[in-house]
């Protein structure tokens, strides 16, 4: 393999990493950006998505369908959480944080009790490799990358154009005013939370074949997701994409010559420095 081929391959791998990060963080960014709620259970939502697809696979359901089911299941969980728990808090953001933390613990342990702590595997819906730059590259990874792009664009469009997107942005700007103008704020929150949760579930399902699905996988995604949001900036979904690019890119680049834990630590250091010198995130306009 020539050097350019190696680099191009690395690039592609990094793109996939970034794509994964975007998928995993988009849901978090929506919920955090809109409702000012740090969903500490975000990682667990991803985990639930993973387990859903594992379960549906054992029933013989095609993993693609399983992924959609996962999105649905986790969306339902999200709605239940938002209506039943978060909704009762009436805007105490730090309390919401603790609440979702407690929820994360509960979810993690429920899954552990039901499924046990041993990791499960999920089978990819497509196997085999495609020749990219002269070497075989897993087809599934390409599919995930493609799906990520499609989903991201869909979400960006959703929040930008249709009436729904307008209502969301209005509520984000001034909740009371939006309510006065007839926006059902409660529903906006619930639907947004549901979308964010669905995205997390979907991400978990897509990722399942890559990773070992176990009850504790949430932690990394939570941390990574948040760093993405910090670096990318709040209130801007494009910022999330940008942030993922930075974080994913950095991790990918560093991980090629250092262990992944060191990569994460360095990236955290970068994130802290970014926060220090440009608190509003790299991609937002203050």
């Amino acid at each position: 393999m020539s050097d350019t081929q190696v680099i191009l391959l690395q690039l592609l791998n990094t793109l996939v990493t970034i794509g994964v990060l975007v998928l995993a963080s988009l849901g978090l960014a929506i919920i955090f950006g809109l409702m000012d709620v740090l969903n500490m259970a975000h990682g667990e939502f991803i985990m639930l998505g993973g387990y859903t697809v594992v379960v549906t696979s054992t029933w013989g359901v095609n993993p693609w369908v399983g992924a959609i089911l996962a999105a649905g299941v986790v969306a339902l969980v999200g709605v239940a959480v938002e209506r039943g728990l978060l909704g009762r808090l009436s805007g105490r953001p730090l309390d919401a944080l603790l609440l979702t933390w407690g929820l994360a613990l509960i979810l993690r342990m429920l899954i552990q009790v039901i499924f046990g702590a041993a990791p499960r595997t999920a089978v990819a819906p497509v196997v085999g490799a495609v020749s990219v730059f002269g070497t075989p590259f897993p087809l599934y990874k390409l599919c995930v990358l493609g799906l990520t792009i499609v989903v991201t664009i869909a979400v960006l469009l959703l929040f930008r154009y249709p009436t729904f997107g307008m209502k969301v942005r209005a509520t984000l700007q001034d909740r009371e005013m939006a309510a006065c103008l007839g926006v059902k704020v409660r529903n906006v929150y619930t639907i947004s939370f549901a979308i964010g949760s669905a995205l997390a579930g979907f991400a978990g399902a897509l990722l399942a074949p890559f990773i070992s699905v176990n009850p504790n996988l949430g932690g990394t995604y939570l941390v990574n997701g948040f760093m993405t949001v910090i670096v990318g900036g709040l209130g801007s979904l494009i910022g999330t994409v940008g942030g993922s690019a930075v974080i994913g890119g950095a991790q990918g680049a560093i991980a090629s010559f250092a262990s992944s834990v060191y990569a994460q630590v360095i990236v955290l250091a970068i994130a802290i420095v970014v926060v220090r010198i440009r608190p509003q995130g790299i991609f937002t306009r203050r």
Partner: protein
Amino acid sequence: MASLGSSRLRRGIAGLIGPSDGEGARRSKERPFALASKTLLFAAAVGVASFFWGGRGGVDQATLWLIFGMLAVGVDVWWGYAGLLSFGHGVFFGLGAFGYAWITTGSLPWFSFLGQTPLAGALFGVVAATAMGALVAYFLSYGRVTGAYFCIVTMALSFLLAALAQGTPLFGGFTGLGGVPPLGIGRFSSSGGAAMLAIVAVTLTVAVYLLRWLLNTNLGRVIDGSRENETRIEYLGANVPKLRVMMMALSAAVSGLAGVFFAAHSGYVSSDLLGMGISTEAVIWVAVGGRMTLIGPVIGAVAVRAAGYALSGVATSFWQLFLGLVIVILVLVGGNGIVGLGRATTGWIRGKMAKKPAVGKAPT
């Protein structure tokens, strides 16, 4: 109590608990001596009770709980008083513990000039933790990182440092470091038992005293202001980032000291002391016991740990599940933990007694 219909009782209790003050809770102006005495009494009570329950082993357990109580106090200094939630205090706790372990086992050749006495170890551990606290606070406070962002970053720090430590031989890798000597000065060394409990209890009491005294000064007022309305107090001239660095250093010092005691008491340190398990459980202790009370966290730590110990026959997953439920319920119900409930109760009783002077009912 005088006869209360069960529905009145329920309403009464609901009224006690009420909506949470959240970030606006006012702190008491309790005198340091009174608070410190209560702390000492509580610690002593815990020690005696655990002795009757489980002999010397019980006392050792109680000491551990009080050590965690000290960590909880450290968290309260930051979360309760400075007002920012941190999921990363395990870092300070762990650094204190490792600092002590490294010095007393001579694992740091660069610092061998300090000797290997427990005292040197303790000092090193506390200083390391404090320095880390000041550093973290410096970056985050001057970077105006607050609220949820602060949470994330501290959480990430804790998570990643623990992961890093797991892969580093200095931190003992997966297995941790053993053979950490106990506390002692000169020829006297305490190897557990009542002596260690007493040391921890007294240190805890002194710490609470000093903290309460400090927070009763003008510093406490300015901290209150920075917590309640950060922007406003800046327009009044306060240098909020500097204040926060001070508070974090203080908080980290107390947490680090707890870590030192942990290392000396258990003789063993491992990388998960740095991680999210301890960091987040410490937050639970403070939430259960009562924020901004200094003694509440101690009570909370002991209560949660004791409950965990009692239920330790049951699988750990159930315990964590239980903890999760406790947090969710605590948040939904509001109030300020055990101490908050206690204060509301005494307030309610006093109110009741004031209302019925002439009626023939005997006061409770």
